[in-house]
């Protein structure tokens, strides 16, 4: 299969730019990063899905003879997947923006702060503190007790 270098490079550029935005603390920037990345990945799908061709539309006459690949129609399977991805991205966009808005309402900022629970666990790990464990007590609850039975061996 012949590989389209322009599209492969573009996929890398879009994902790379997306990553730079993604690893920032602003929710909106991170969302823009996700959108860039998903555009990049969709383009990568074009590269790996094979040679371009006519639109995958057939009629009664052409259904039996249509071939997939160079000179025929483009591969429909990756297209169905990408189409699904596009719509999911829309839903994710709406949700992330609602999150950003909520964050703004609460703190007039869309900056993601450090997670306090994670910080707490990090501190526990640093101190080797197993207070959260259910198995802090190693005692055998059914050990033979030290106290003798009262009243003649009871």
């Amino acid at each position, binding site marked *: 299969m012949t590989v389209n270098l322009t599209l492969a490079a573009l996929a890398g550029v879009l994902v790379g730019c997306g990553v730079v935005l993604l690893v920032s603390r602003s929710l909106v920037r991170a969302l*823009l990063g996700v959108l860039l990345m998903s555009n990049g990945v969709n383009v990568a799908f074009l590269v790996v899905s094979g040679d371009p061709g006519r639109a995958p539309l057939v009629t009664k006459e052409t259904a*039996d003879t249509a071939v997939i690949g160079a000179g025929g129609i483009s591969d429909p399977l990756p297209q169905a997947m990408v189409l699904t991805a596009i719509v999911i991205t829309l839903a994710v966009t709406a949700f992330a923006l609602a999150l950003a808005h909520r964050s703004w309402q609460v703190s007039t900022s869309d900056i993601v702060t450090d997670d306090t629970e994670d910080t707490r666990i990090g501190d526990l790990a640093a101190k080797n503190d197993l207070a959260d464990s259910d198995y802090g007590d190693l005692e055998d609850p059914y050990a033979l007790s030290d106290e003798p039975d009262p009243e003649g061996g009871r």
Partner: protein
Amino acid sequence: MLIQVVLHLTVAACAPLLVRWWGRRAFWVLALPSLGTVVWALAQTPAVVDGRGPSEMIRWAPEIGLELGFRLDTLAWLMTLVVAGIGVLVLLYCADYFEDDEPDLGRFSAHLTAFAGAMVGLVTSDNLLLLYLFWELTTVLSYLLIGHVNQDEKSRSAATQALVVTTAGGLAMLCGLVILANAAGSYELSTILAHPPSGTVVSWAVFLILLGAISKSALVPIHFWLPGAMAAPTPVSAYLHAAAMVKAGIYLVARFAPGFAEAPPWRPTILILGALTMLVGGYRALRQHDLKLLLAFGTVSQLGFLMILVGAGTREAALAGVTMLVAHALFKSGLFLTVGSIDHATGTRDLRKLSGLRRSTPLLFWSAVLCGASMAGVPPLLGFVGKEAAYTSLLYADAAWGVPLFVVVMLGSILTFAYTARFLWGAFGTIPGKEPTSVHPLHPLAVAVPVTLAAASLVAAPLSGLGEPYLDGYVDLWPAGSHPAHLGLWHGLNLVLLLSLVTLALGAVLFAWRSRVAHLQQAMPEPPSAISAYRLFMRGLDRLSLEVTGGVQRGSLPLTLGLILLVLIVLPGGSILLGGSMPASVRAFDNPAQLGVAVLATVAAVAAVRSRRRMRGVILVGVTGYAAAVLFLVHGAPDLALTQTLVETLSLVVFVLVLRRLSGRFDENRDIRHRTIRVTLGVLTGAVVTGATVVAAGARTQLPASVGWPKTAYDYGGGGNIVNVALVDIRAWDTMGEISVVLVAATGVASLVYLSSERLSATRARVRDTRSRRGEQAADTTGGWLPEGDNAPRELRSLLLEIVTRVIFHAIMVWSLFLLFVGHNQPGGGFAAGIVAGLALTVRYLAGGAGELRAALPVMPGLLLGSGLFLSAGFGVVSMLAGGDVLQTWDYDLHLPLIGELHLVTSVFFDIGVYLVVIGLVLDILRSLGSGLDAQINRAHEEVNR
């Protein structure tokens, strides 16, 4: 047998309802399936004795060897009688044990009834995987039953402990079963046992299966979960942890012994662990103060004893084993239920507190004496019969392990006598100088059931000789040994009888010297405790998870993401560098237009990264999206191009709706060092993606999976647009999952904006209001095209937008419907059509505000989302009911006069569902992020003005 299981499960499902209606009396009904099973099994007795027991086989998943295969042979018949028989009695006991106001009684009763059904299924199933299924079902139900008092931390942790230990064993067993089935070439238990395979692999399989049995039957060193399980209500202990579930391991060993007792790991594992268990359990039972714990350690000891007998692999030991199994089920459940009644009557199970119960509860006392005598092996009870047979089988075994094991069993039996005597004396004896413990009156069944079990132990003993032939079907799987054992109370004066008497005498001495024994036990060093080792291991796991979590999850989102990306760079990137082969042929582009678009998109992407203004960033990202749409078109994917363009447009609208509330610039510190790291990460990830794309595309050797699709899409899917047929037919499950995700996201958006149900119901009220007004307007035709437009605030109105909206709204809606229905053959389909309709709604909203949006579509988004998913899923169900596969498509060609041929495809209903879900999403976005934020902005303004 499937019927019996299903009956149990059905009644269990109804149990919570029955308990709500009738309170604890519901247990009378819940006992019926078990009673029916007992009656059925008894009716099958003649057939079973003749070796013609019934068997069933219903295909389930033949591809993996999982079938609903059941059969009732002698062993299964015996086990069914035991588990269902004890089940009836325990369920009846519950009817007088619990109070009507016991918390969660409905749930408890369901679990207990379901457990009885799972047990019946376990002992009758003839398929290894089915057996495993029931096996784990009993584990899970045991977990739920032990943790019944779920407010109590101790009971929860005991339940978890039992679950962890028994599922670990169960998983090992599953591996063993699969290996065994592969070696034997069948998952059918009876087939495998008829021709047992052998070899190293089979030995491993047998060992793994034994691990399952060991964990289930609480053998040393993982016996500790059983005493812990005493946190369960006493009827559960009596049933699960004495008569039924712990017997599952015994049953498994008894089941496999005829075929695999000669396998190398079998006897060392079973006999050594069984012997240890019998002694450890008896030793520890001597020192418990809680009557239930005393019995629990006694059960551990007896399980070791049973394991030795059923695992020894001789005819005589097997006969003794199944006899002891029945005897143990009778006396141990009887004793547990006695303890339950004592607990109920006095409020304590501590033998240091109980005094004088012999006089205050005489019936209970005598039944406990009988059960205890059976446990201690005192004539004339069934336990004595079993132990005589056991002594004979081991003492005269034709193998070197016979006599040493006999010594162990005799020592264990001496301990058994001693702790039984301690139990009876502790529970019913009188402590000198102590007031008799006050006793509440007991309900009749709380006494009648233990008495019944005691009577059974007594009656069965003299009849045991008559019953022996009924067991031939099982014990005849082995050849008779040189010194046969038989059941019965009297075999003449012989060595075994003498040794039995010695056992009783030594046990009595041990009991009489209990003070000295206690002091001796205290002086002895504490043996290494298995439960401490378990807890140490679990704490180690906790420690490991703490260190890993603490090390990796630092709480910073960029750091976490960076870590994930680093893995992407190192692993796939490294493997591309080391072993990725470059493609044989490359080309710069297919079409010069690609190059131009790619350059444009690159510029836009880099500019988006550098942008400090939010809106500029959004628009630049949008440019890359439109560029992608052009690339789709050039590639030959018009559906993608269409959908991408529409989504990109809608995304812009959504961004604008939200960003109006946020500041214009990204507020972020511009630390140079951080920026360098981020850019490096981005460059490396981008390089890996490009590299992976090139290598993956070049490495392709197979034809596309979609080679036959054009023909199937047209012939079976009934459509010419293959992408659309893929979405609504070939890969319809994917689409179903996707619209579910869309629904969840839309719900999330609404919940993040509305926050409180009051605001949501206010919105709902406004929508309802608008709907009724629309009805009136439609009636007198005064509505016009922008009926609510006049209500919008004057400063927000735009004449141009209003006029354009009036002109194009209906045209867009018609186009959307066109796309929906033509989509099966031409570019379009539910997704694109839904977004087009959504854009039409957006235009209405922009022109006339929230009121106009309500006028355009006076329903809540949830209605569209819900009915859309319902339509798509419902289509799947309908096509299944119509006899096809789930989501199968039918098409009809209607020949209509005048109009000509009309092509109808059923999957259009699926697409309409998709269409409705997408419109629902857009409506939800507009109503939450549009009107919802409008209202918030207005409220903020009013507050400022005030």
